[in-house]
């Protein structure tokens, strides 16, 4: 191949996301560029920890990162909660905002400051609260010991929860032994793969963080070396892989819910009124905390909320 890229993903080896999204992307790129671009993919943690992937792309160590840009928000506050939305109107809102709602222009400008090209995004399944006792609404979050990170952590804290920061590998034991009562960790398939359903018999649905995205970034140097006629083909490859992955991910999540209920896990359905309270708490964090720290963030949030409005969501 003319160009060989190294890519590390945030998806673990053996996950549907890695196979149907990441490896699929590599295959599509290879086919669509007639073999001129080859992408060597590595699962989460193979070359470096997930938290340092964005650093590595900005330094050119990795050519491509499939990651969450929020990992870079310690350096660039505009990227706080970049993958998350206050509310889900539809599962593809983040994806559509990026490609059609002005998201790519806004985000590429920010990311370009750090020597990276923001190639695109993929839809991401939402997260739920997995708990040892039923959490039926925001009132139950008061005083709850919950493991969380990012916007979820700030949102839960705003609702009165005691947020504990725990590394991923301690989540299972911490739940099992009651170090925490509940966790926000990651998507349903990944949580299921870790066996969290064995120690958390209640899952609050629907997801409070649906409609988000994972991010694809390319080091600026690597992107500049791609011949102009191949760039649209690579972008195309990502869209195709993303859409196909989304179909399989949604199906996988539905199947898992049935499987979980059969195995004795209770899906605790939150009424719309409670979901609204959660959304408001998250939105307040975004407006009062994140937007106050970064003009770019404020601009991005404004654009996202306008986009949600167009989809029929009434922003409080």
């Amino acid at each position, binding site marked *: 191949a003319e160009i060989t890229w190294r890519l590390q993903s945030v998806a673990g080896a053996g996950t549907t996301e890695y196979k149907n999204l990441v490896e699929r992307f590599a295959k599509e790129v290879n086919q669509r560029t007639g073999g001129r671009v080859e992408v060597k993919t590595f699962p989460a*943690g193979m*070359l470096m920890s997930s938290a*340092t992937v964005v650093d590595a792309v900005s330094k050119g*160590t990795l050519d491509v990162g499939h990651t969450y840009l929020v990992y870079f928000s310690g350096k660039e506050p505009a990227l706080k909660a970049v993958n998350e939305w206050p509310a889900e109107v539809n599962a593809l809102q983040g994806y559509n905002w990026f490609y059609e709602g002005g998201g790519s222009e806004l985000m590429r400008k920010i990311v370009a400051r750090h020597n990276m090209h923001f190639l695109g995004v993929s839809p991401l399944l939402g997260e739920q609260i997995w708990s040892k006792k039923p959490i039926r609404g925001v009132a139950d979050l008061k005083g709850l010991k919950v493991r969380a990170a990012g916007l979820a952590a700030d949102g839960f804290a705003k609702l009165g929860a005691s947020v504990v920061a725990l590394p991923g*590998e301690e989540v299972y034991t911490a739940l099992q*032994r009651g170090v925490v009562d509940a966790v926000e960790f990651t998507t349903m398939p990944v949580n299921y793969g870790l066996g969290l359903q064995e120690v958390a018999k209640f899952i609050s649905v629907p997801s409070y963080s649906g409609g988000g995205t994972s991010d694809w970034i390319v080091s600026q140097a690597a992107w500049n070396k791609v011949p102009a006629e191949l760039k649209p083909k690579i972008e195309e490859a990502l869209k195709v892989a993303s859409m196909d992955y989304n179909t399989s991910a949604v199906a996988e999540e539905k199947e898992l819910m049935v499987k979980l209920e059969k195995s004795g896990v209770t899906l605790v359905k939150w009424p719309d009124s409670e979901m609204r309270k959660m959304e408001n708490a998250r939105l307040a964090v975004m407006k009062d905390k994140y937007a106050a720290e970064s003009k770019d963030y404020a601009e991005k949030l404004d654009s996202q909320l306008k986009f949600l409005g167009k989809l029929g969501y009434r922003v409080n």
Partner: protein
Amino acid sequence: MGVQLLTVVLFGSLFALIFLGVPLAFALGSVAVVVGFFEWGPMALHLLAGHVKSATFNYTLVSIPFFMFMAGILNKAGVANDLYHAIHVLFGPLRGGLAVGTVLACTIIAAMSGVSAVGVMAMGSLALPAMLARGYEKHMSMGTILAGGALGQLIPPSVLGIVYSGLANLSVGQVFLSGLMPGLLLASLFITYVLLKCWINPAAGPAMPAEERARITGRERIASLLGIVPMALLVLAVLGAMFTGIAGPTEAAAVGAVGSMVIGFARRSLRWGDIADAARETLKSTSMVIWIAVASLVFVSVYAGIGGDKLVRSLLIGMDLPAWVVMTIMMVILFLLGMVMDPIGIIFLTTPIFLPIVVALGFDPLWYGGMLIINLEMSYLTPPFGYNLFYLNSVAPKGISMKDIYKSTPPFIALQGLGLVICAFAPQVVTWLPKYVLGQ
């Protein structure tokens, strides 16, 4: 250069530097840096900074200094003296009893310490002179201490278990529990060996003479048993904190470290100066281990980045060998690495490459973790580089040479190997307890 050739260059120069006496951390790091520069590009060297950053923010690694500090305090305060005394009184009358008691003491110490040094250094300074004075065969005496001490990394808590669980994304609790039954299995193998050997050859471990036995009063027996209480409390505090959910593994290590200071002060055997000494020793061991971990991670990143992980996978899986043959090959590789490398470094180095293969072959990562740690038990004893050999050498009485220590290891390495084979044929030894307790 092809990946095959690069593999030879990478590992060839690594071992050349190791045998030249270059510290492990810098041998690993410099080889990775040079190969990364030429085969990946100058920007690959940012990996070094990235892995330093990751190590800094890896919460589970914090348990390492805590466990090491606890080890230092326990040794300085002589907390194991009472334990040893009790075992001496209880098991002395038995043929080979002191060696059996040494293994039992190591087993109890292992249940509160996450490293191997406590057992080796405590028993090396207490039990070894006592056994030698009674005419115990010296190689058998030293072997029980070396192998018994290594149980500290198999019986929970265990630093190796913490490191593996972090890399394999398994729960630390499960990994810990997976080591308990294999640990007890190894302990019983060592005891069986000692008893058989002394039964065949009574001179190897003569029983306590009758007149000495007669001199031990009932009161002394009870007093010696009471001496175990602080140790038992410490075991309860560390394991109890963890398994009742009061504390995570890193926190449990802190509980153990603070608890051992409390016991040391209560016994009036710990001075403030000891704490400063233990702190400095802990710094050295921790810094060494973390710099090895960083370098191992850079090494494995570079190797995977130039296609090494795919090469290993295609060699091990692509040839359509039966799964157990592949597992055997991996175990042999681990054993060989264990001769020249630090066990924590080995876990960092091999897990990212081996674990996907383990999963692809349909093995349980929890079972593999158990096998990995049992295998690395041997690395504490195999020359030229074996921590327990160095520890014992540092506390052994005059007249014991490094050569004597080396010569004491083969039967015990064989017993550890036997334990590994048993767990290969009966994987339940590893996996039953965690699955039962944690309800899978």
